C-alpha cells in the first residue's frame, strides 16, 4: 500500500502549510509519510510544490505521483509526465485550464470548484487548499476525520469558529468529490487506508537538529539567516523562552560564529547554523576555535554552489570544504546525519564532542534533509551531557602559586579548561601559537609540540567516539551502494527496488566523516563486492576522501548535481543499466533531470 500525492501552485498560495497538514493526517493513521517541498528562491510567483509519499515504511520521495492537485497552470505543465498511468488530477477550471487528454487518456481529470467551495462556505481564496485536501482524501479513500483532527488542533489557538470553518471547508471538498466523481473514484485503483491510530511526529531535519541541540544543552545560538539553515534559527527563536535558550541574530556570520566561540569560552554551550556562503565567512574563526581549543559547533546545511547559486535547492558539495576550510592544519570533527533520529542524536552529540575534544565540530545536512518532513517515532530524551575536561567554580580549587597552564601537554592532547569565574584559572586563550601557559611562543620546538598535542586528540576520537559507517542489508550482497548524510533513506529505497527485482544490494552509510579509522575501513572495504558510490555532487567528494584516507576506490560513481537530490528510482535504473552491460559500462555516471521547465519563471525554458 503506497500513495503519492502532490500539490502545486505559486509561492504565497499556502502550499507548504497544506502539505504539512496532510502529512500529519497520514501519520495519525499509522502510516509513514515523507513530505517533500520544492520551491524557487522568490516570495511570490514561481512554482512551489509539496509532495507526500505515504506508505507503511517510506524513507524518500519518488518522482511520479498518483494524484496531483494543480492550483495553477505551471503545475499542469511541470507534471504532465509526472503522473503514474491511471493517475488523477484535481484542478479548478475557473482558475486553471486543462485540455482533455493533456495528461493522457488514462488519467482522471477532476474539475473541482475549489475557489467557489471555499468562498461559498465563508472562507477566503487561500482556503481553496483546504477544499483540495478534503477532495483528495475522498478520492484516495482515506479517512476525513484524521484531516479534521489535524485542522482542529492546528487552528485551536484561533478559536472554535476558525476550527469549524476549516473543517466545514475540508468537508465541502470531500463531499463534492463523493457526489460528483463516484465512477472515477471506483475505477481509481490507487488507495490509501488508515492502518491504526498512531502518535508519531512529523518533523524536518532542521527541526530535529534544533531539538537535538536543545536536548544536548544548547544555551546560546547565534546565527545569520541563510537558506536552507534558517529554519533552525526560526525554531529556536520560537522556542527560546520555553527552552531557556538565547537566540541571537547577529550582523553577519563572522559575528555569529564568534558569539558562539565567546560563549563556549565562558562555559556555555553555544552553536551556530549556516549554509556555504556563511560558512565561508566563518572559515577564519574555525581556525580560532581550533588554535584556542575553544569548542564550537556549526550546523552546516548545504545548498548548491559556488556563490549564491541555487539557494533553495540541494547538493552535497561542501564535504571537502568542511574538511579543509581555514588556513593551517588542524583537527575537526565532521558528521552527517541521515535521518530524523540521527539529526536529533548527532546534533546533541556534536555539542558533546566539541566540549570533550575542545575543537570545532561541523554537522552537515543539506536542503533536502533539512527541509523535508518525515514521520518518525518520538525522540528519546536520554541525552547525556558530557562537558569533558571543563573546570567550573564548584570543583576542587586550583592552586594559586603559578600561572595556569591552559595548554598543558597531555597524553590525549586535551588540557583541562577552567572557565572565567574560577579562581586560579586565569589564563589567556587565543589565536596565537603559545606555550603551555598561553603566552605567545615563537620557539620551534614548542610550536611543533603544540601542533602534535592538538593532533593527538585524533587517537581518543577514533578509540572512544568514532563510528564506522553502517551497513544496511545482507552482508553478502553482490553490490553495495555507498552514500553519506542525507542520502541514507534514498539509497535504502533504491536498494529495496533492486532487491525486489532479484538483485542482492545493501547500503553503506557514513555519518562520521572525519576523522576516519583507516585500518577498520580498509578491512570493511575488503569484504564488499561490487561498489557504487552515490553522491549528490560533481566530483564524488567522499570517494576522494576515502581514497586519501583508506586507499579505497569504488567500482562505479553515480553523481547528480543538477540541484536536486537523487530519487531512488534513478539509482535503481542506473544500477540495472550497469548490470545489463555486464558491468562494462562507464565508471562514472551523471544523472541529470531533463525537465524542460524553470521553477523561477514557472514556465517552459526557451533560452
Amino acid at each position: 500500500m503506497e500513495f503519492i500525492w502532490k500539490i502545486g501552485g505559486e509561492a504565497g498560495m499556502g502550499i507548504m502549510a497544506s502539505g504539512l497538514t496532510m502529512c500529519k493526517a497520514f501519520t495519525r493513521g499509522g502510516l509513514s509519510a515523507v513530505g517533500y517541498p520544492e520551491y524557487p528562491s522568490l516570495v511570490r510567483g514561481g512554482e512551489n510544490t509539496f509532495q507526500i509519499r505515504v506508505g507503511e515504511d517510506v524513507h524518500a520521495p519518488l518522482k511520479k505521483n498518483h494524484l496531483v492537485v494543480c492550483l495553477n497552470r505551471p503545475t499542469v505543465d511541470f507534471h504532465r509526465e509526472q503522473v503514474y498511468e491511471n493517475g488523477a488530477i484535481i484542478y479548478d477550471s475557473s482558475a486553471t485550464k486543462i485540455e482533455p487528454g493533456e495528461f493522457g487518456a488514462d488519467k482522471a481529470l477532476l474539475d473541482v470548484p475549489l475557489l467557489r467551495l471555499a468562498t461559498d462556505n465563508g472562507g477566503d481564496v487561500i482556503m481553496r487548499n483546504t477544499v483540495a485536501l478534503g477532495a483528495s482524501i475522498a478520492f484516495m479513500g482515506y479517512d476525513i476525520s484524521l484531516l479534521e483532527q489535524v485542522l482542529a488542533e492546528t487552528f485551536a489557538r484561533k478559536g472554535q469558529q476558525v476550527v469549524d470553518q476549516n473543517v466545514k471547508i475540508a468537508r465541502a471538498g470531500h463531499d463534492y468529490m463523493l457526489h460528483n466523481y463516484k465512477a472515477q473514484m471506483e475505477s481509481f485503483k490507487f488507495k490509501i487506508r488508515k492502518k491504526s491510530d498512531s502518535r508519531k511526529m512529523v518533523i524536518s531535519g532542521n527541526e530535529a537538529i534544533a531539538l537535538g541541540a536543545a536536548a544536548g544543552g544548547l544555551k546560546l545560538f547565534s546565527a545569520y539567516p541563510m537558506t536552507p539553515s534558517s529554519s533552525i534559527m526560526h525554531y529556536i527563536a520560537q522556542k527560546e523562552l520555553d527552552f531557556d535558550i538565547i537566540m541571537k541574530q547577529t550582523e553577519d556570520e563572522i559575528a555569529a560564529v564568534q558569539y558562539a566561540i565567546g560563549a563556549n569560552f565562558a562555559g556555555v554551550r553555544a552553536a551556530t547554523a549556516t549554509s556555504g556562503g556563511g560558512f565561508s565567512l566563518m572559515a577564519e574563526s574555525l581556525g580560532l576555535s581550533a588554535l584556542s581549543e575553544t569548542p564550537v559547533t556549526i550546523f552546516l546545511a548545504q545548498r548548491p554552489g559556488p556563490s549564491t547559486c541555487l539557494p533553495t535547492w540541494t547538493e552535497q558539495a561542501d564535504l571537502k570544504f568542511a574538511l579543509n576550510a581555514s588556513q593551517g592544519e588542524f583537527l575537526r570533527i565532521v558528521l552527517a546525519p541521515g535521518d530524523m533520529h540521527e539529526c536529533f542524536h548527532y546534533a546533541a552529540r556534536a555539542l558533546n564532542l566539541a566540549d570533550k575534544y575542545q575543537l570545532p565540530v561541523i554537522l552537515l545536512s543539506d536542503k533536502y534533509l533539512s527541509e523535508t518532513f518525515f514521520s518518525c517515532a518520538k525522540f528519546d530524551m536520554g541525552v547525556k551531557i558530557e562537558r569533558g575536561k571543563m573546570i567550573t567554580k564548584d570543583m576542587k580549587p586550583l592552586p594559586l602559586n603559578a600561572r595556569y597552564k591552559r595548554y598543558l601537554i597531555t597524553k590525549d592532547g586535551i588540557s583541562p579548561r577552567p572557565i572565567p569565574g574560577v579562581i586560579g584559572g586565569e589564563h589567556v586563550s587565543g589565536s596565537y601559537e603559545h606555550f603551555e601557559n598561553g603566552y605567545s611562543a615563537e620557539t620551534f620546538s614548542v610550536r611543533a609540540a603544540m601542533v602534535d598535542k592538538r593532533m593527538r586528540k585524533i587517537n581518543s576520537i577514533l578509540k572512544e567516539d568514532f563510528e564506522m559507517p553502517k551497513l544496511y542489508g545482507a552482508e553478502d550482497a553482490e553490490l553495495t551502494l555507498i552514500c553519506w548524510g542525507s542520502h541514507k533513506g534514498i539509497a535504502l529505497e533504491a536498494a529495496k527496488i533492486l532487491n525486489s527485482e532479484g538483485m542482492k544490494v545493501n547500503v553503506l552509510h557514513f555519518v562520521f566523516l572525519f576523522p576516519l579509522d583507516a585500518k577498520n575501513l580498509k578491512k570493511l572495504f575488503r569484504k564488499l563486492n561490487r561498489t557504487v558510490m552515490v553522491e549528490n555532487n560533481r566530483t564524488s567528494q567522499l570517494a576522494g576522501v576515502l581514497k586519501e584516507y583508506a586507499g579505497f576506490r569504488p567500482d562505479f560513481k553515480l553523481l547528480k548535481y543538477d540541484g536536486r537530490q537523487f530519487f531512488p528510482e534513478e539509482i535503481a535504473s542506473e544500477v540495472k543499466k550497469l548490470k545489463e552491460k555486464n558491468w562494462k559500462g562507464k565508471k562514472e555516471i551523471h544523472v541529470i533531470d531533463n525537465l524542460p521547465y524553470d521553477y523561477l519563471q514557472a514556465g517552459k525554458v526557451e533560452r
Partner: protein
Amino acid sequence: MSSIQELTTKEKPQWCPGCGNFGLHMALKGALSELGIPKEKTVLVSGVGCSGKASHYINTYGFESLHGRSVTVASGVKLANHGLTVIAEGGDGDGYGIGSAHFLHSFRRNIDLTYIVHDNSIYGLTTGQASPTSQHGMKTKSTPHGNLEMQFNPLAVAIAAGGTFVARVFAGDMAHMKEVFKQALQHKGFALVDVLQPCVTFNKLNTFAWWQQRVYKLESAGHDPKNKAAAMEKAFEEMSSNYSKIPTGVFYKEERPTYVDESPQLASGPLIGHAVKSAEIEKAFEEFM
C-alpha cells in the same frame, strides 16, 4: 579586590618603548583595582594588532581573538555570563576597519561591555599602513603620495548609531584615562573609549607633542554629556577646528536598558547557571504530532 601588581602578569610586554599602550594598561589596571573588580571575574578580549597582546599582560581571563573580532567574542562571553566584567580591546584598524560592522551594531545592541580602542591612526603591527583614522593627506607606507580618504569619525558614528557611552581620552594623561575607564566600566551598557595615542615608530604626524598641544577636557569646558546635540557637535570639533582643538572626556552618556536587561531568559541570572529544560523539550515533541 586585586592590586595593580596582582593584575600584572610576568610576561614582558612587546610594545615599543614610549608606546601609549603602557600608560593605557596602567590606567586600566588602576581602574579595575580601584573599582574592586575581582580578576577571576574579568575577561579581557583583544583583537589582533599591537593592542592584541593586551590580554597577555593582564592577569585576568584573557582571549586573543582574530583581527577585528574582539567585540564579537566579548559579546558572546557577556551573554553567556553577565556576572563577568567584560572588556574588549583593539586597534583603530581592528575596530574601525576590518571589524567595522561589529562596531556599528554594538551600539544599538547595547551589551554591557567596555570597548577600548587603541587609536594611533596607523596600522602599527603591520608596520605602518594607513588606517581609517589616518588624516586626509597623511603619508604612510600604503599611501606614500598622501591618503586620499577622509578620516573616520568614531565618536560621531557611535552617537548616531545609538551609543550609550561615548568617550575619548589621550594616552598621555594617565589620571584622566583612569577616571574615564572607571566610568566606562561602571556604565550599564556598551561603552566606547577611543584612546588617542601616538605610534612612536610609524606615525610621524600625530606625536605625543602634537596631541598634547591640541587636547582639552570636556569636563572643564562645561560640556553636558546628556546633551546629544552638543555631544555630536563636540565629536566634529577636531575636524571643524582643523585639528586645533581636540576634546577628550565623556562626550555622551545615556541610560538605556542593556541587551541582558531586556532578555527575559536572563532575568533569573547568568546563562551559565541555567539547566537544560528537558521537560519543555519533551513537551515540544508533542507539537510535531
